[in-house]
């Protein structure tokens, strides 16, 4: 579309609102970053100070050297990637089935997955804990990955179903006409085309797992502690370690944001094909 607005009008209608929105999105984060480079004495003063008089990285140093935070970041990464693998591995075939097959249980099952999302996770915590204990999965990567993947699956199934719906059936037909089996058709034709959708769903699972606290807290122990649980440990009974907490919080947001930066072109393209009606 040709944009015939004047430069000034464009500024007022586009650049200015965008600047405001980005400022809104970043404001609290910037406040956290500013706090993380203030010496302890400058945190929590009245009136609040914005620019630190003397910036210091001591909190980051302490975080790296005297706590297990970096190890926790690694744990979170493993858990999140595991959840992505399991979540995608399970929801992609399911979505394919919902998209390509018509069977009586189809609608009830689709709605069923939606209902799963509606169950308040909080109340499931103790029964889930007991279950994981019986399966011997407490304080293991597998246990937390299973927990995270399971709660990401319903959303992933729905998202992937609409991406598969966007790929015309003719593609499957064309592949089989050439002698490919169904599995080969999937592997060689459908999956590559659905890749942007798969990537998008993967990112959603990654972010959800990365930020998750409840499961991680209940199902983890000494061996597997994610970064959200580690952050919580800076909040004690009698004191909050604001310096460490804000430093940790600053670091926590970075992996997901960087991932977005890298993927954002594909992300946009990925969700695209999901909405196309053929």
């Amino acid at each position: 579309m040709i944009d015939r607005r004047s430069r000034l009008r464009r500024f007022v209608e586009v650049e200015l609102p965008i600047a405001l929105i980005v400022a809104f999105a970043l404001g609290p984060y910037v406040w956290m970053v500013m706090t993380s480079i203030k010496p302890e004495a400058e945190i929590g003063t009245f009136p609040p100070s914005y620019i630190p008089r003397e910036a210091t990285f001591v909190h980051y140093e302490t975080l790296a050297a005297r706590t297990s935070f970096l190890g926790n970041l690694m744990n979170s990464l493993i858990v999140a990637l595991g959840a992505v693998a399991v979540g995608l591995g399970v929801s992609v075939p399911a979505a394919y089935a919902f998209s390509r097959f018509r069977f009586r249980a189809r609608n009830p099952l689709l709605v069923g997955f939606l209902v799963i999302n509606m169950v308040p996770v909080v109340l499931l915590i103790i029964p889930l804990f007991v279950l994981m204990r019986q399966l011997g999965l407490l304080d293991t990567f597998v246990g937390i990955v299973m927990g995270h993947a399971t709660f990401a699956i319903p959303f992933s199934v729905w998202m992937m179903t609409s991406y598969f719906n966007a790929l015309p059936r003719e593609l499957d037909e064309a592949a089989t006409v050439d002698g490919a089996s169904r599995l080969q058709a999937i592997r060689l034709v459908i999956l590559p085309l659905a890749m942007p959708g798969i990537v998008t769903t993967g990112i959603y699972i990654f972010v959800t797992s990365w930020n998750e606290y409840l499961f991680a807290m209940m199902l983890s122990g000494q061996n597997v502690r994610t970064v959200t649980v580690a952050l919580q440990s800076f909040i004690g009974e009698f004191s909050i370690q604001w310096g460490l907490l804000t430093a940790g919080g600053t670091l926590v947001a970075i992996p997901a944001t960087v991932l977005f930066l890298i993927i954002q072109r594909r992300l946009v393209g990925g969700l695209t094909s999901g909405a196309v009606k053929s």
Partner: protein
Amino acid sequence: MKRRTVLKSSAAALAVPMVGASRAQSPTTVRWWYHFDNPQASPASLIAKFEGENPGIKVQAESIPWGGGNDYYTRLYAALVAGNAPDCAMVKLGNQSRLLQMKALAPLDDLLAGWAARRDISENLWKMHRAPDGRNYYVPLQYVVLYLYYRADLFAAAGVQPPRTFDDFLKAAQAVQKGGVSAFGMRGGGGGHDHWGSFVLGAGANFEPGGMVSARALEANRWFVELGTKHKLFPISAPTDGFRQIVDNFKAGRTAMTIHHIGSANEMVQALGDKVSAVPVPVGADGKGWTSFGDESNAVFAASKVKEAAFKWVAFLSTGEHNVAFNAFTGQLTVTDSGASKWNLHPKRFVDATAASTALMGTLPNSTKTADFTRTVWPQQMQRALLGQTTPDAMMQAFERHFHG
């Protein structure tokens, strides 16, 4: 035949030391759950010392996130339900009745009888930790007592003394409330029952049947609520202020008094230096009062298969110098008399205030309803009263109903 006998007997000879060796080599492992405020603090040095003195026992310490208390206890209850609980753990009195009802705790009287350093902990402390059935399930580990922080400089400028009685408190508060500084940083959020307790339980209310709705109790509570609603001596954020807000705001000089304990003393001094000091909480004209006893103990669980070893570890932590070393990690006070006499982890005036407050120490009732009271019922009613959504009297009636139906 001879060779076979030789072989047999040498095999037998070899076998005996093997069995002996393997018994010495398999250590008992004691699993212990703890929570430290400072994530950099680690009990490793204490564990090493203990293991050195007790070869054959290994301590596996697991730090559980506190999460305002909720996460720690959710994990503990879930683990007890799932049969996966540790052998011993740090616990508070507020949970004792629930744990007892779940039959989760092991009575320790026999083991305590054989523990020499038991005498180093005052009989009063043992009494406070004893269960209603007369048995000891908790081994006191550390404690704090709530006292009144005040801004010595603001008081001097206003020409008032730190308050002794409730009436003194009202007069002093009105004198120092000026220039945007609130007189008293009141804690209306979870855990704030400690503040309320000093003024209401200290003035005659109690948790016996009818104790919340007696004339004295209702009068005391009305007086306390009016400090906020009528005299405006609390900051307007009081309803949802938690410990972090009252400490931070006092440190930043926005309140002239607040109630907390020695756990925050070092932080206060760092921010305010000599301007901050402490006295016991206000009492009635008859000298009677109430202040919260902040406890922390270790308990051994009934399902543990290594109770004696677990008790050894628990006892170790509550013994003299080890207890003091433990307190260096947590910032609380030692339960041992020997350690208290040479205390140097906090400035003296706060230790003195704590010592002067021990006569007023009280705990909440050992009832299964208590945890819900402190976490949910008290904050809700207090907040509603401060906001005028309910009357002070209705608030006390709700408490009476909560405990006694």
